[in-house]
């Protein structure tokens, strides 16, 4: 027997760990990794709530699958953009990419 509420709390904590990393890092690839962690935390909360409410058992898991698909698409496009920035500008640090600043 297991209490899914623990998994909800774990999801919240994982989301804040990812938020901390995404805010703190300057490396664009690392920021993208932390965003993936945050999406994973959201999945965790979805699944935990799907277990807490039996009538939402399947809906929560289907949502999690859609989030995985969106996360894959987001990582694909995000990494492509970062690769192109690295090739064009030679830097990967977000605070160095200030082309729009006057």
């Amino acid at each position, binding site marked *: 027997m297991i209490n899914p509420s623990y998994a909800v709390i774990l999801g919240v904590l994982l989301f804040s760990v990812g938020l901390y990393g995404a805010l703190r890092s300057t490396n664009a690839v690392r920021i993208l990794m932390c965003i993936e962690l945050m999406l994973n935390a959201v999945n965790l909360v979805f699944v935990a709530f799907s277990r807490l409410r039996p009538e939402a058992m399947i809906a929560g898991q289907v949502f999690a699958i859609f989030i*995985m*698909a969106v996360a*894959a698409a987001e990582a*694909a496009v995000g990494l*492509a953009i970062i690769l192109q920035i690295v*090739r064009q500008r030679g830097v990967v640090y977000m605070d160095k990419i200030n082309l729009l600043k006057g």
Partner: protein
Amino acid sequence: MGNYFDVLLFLTVGVGFVFLGLWVAKLLRPNLPNTGKQSIFECGERPYGDSRLKFRVRYYIFALVFVIFDVEVIFLYPWAVVFRELGLPGLVEMVVFLGILVVGLVYAWKKKVLQWV
């Protein structure tokens, strides 16, 4: 729960085997380092240059196409399980889904980004 107990056992034994083996080997082996032994192993060749060399961006596109179709497989799997129940509508729905994704594959093909160079 019962099925996953085997998984847990397998995981414990697998991880334990690796670390136990490394630990016993560390206890038994003589420690005589020299420069030849400590150099990076590169199939018996003498290593040269930096190991962090840059690959072509083309290889990233292979990974990209793989990821997109990996996600597609995740949708295919539950479909295959309930395929008999769904019948013809299910088949049509999946054909539409696959058709949309095949457009992307055709685009990648036409753009000639799938060629291994």
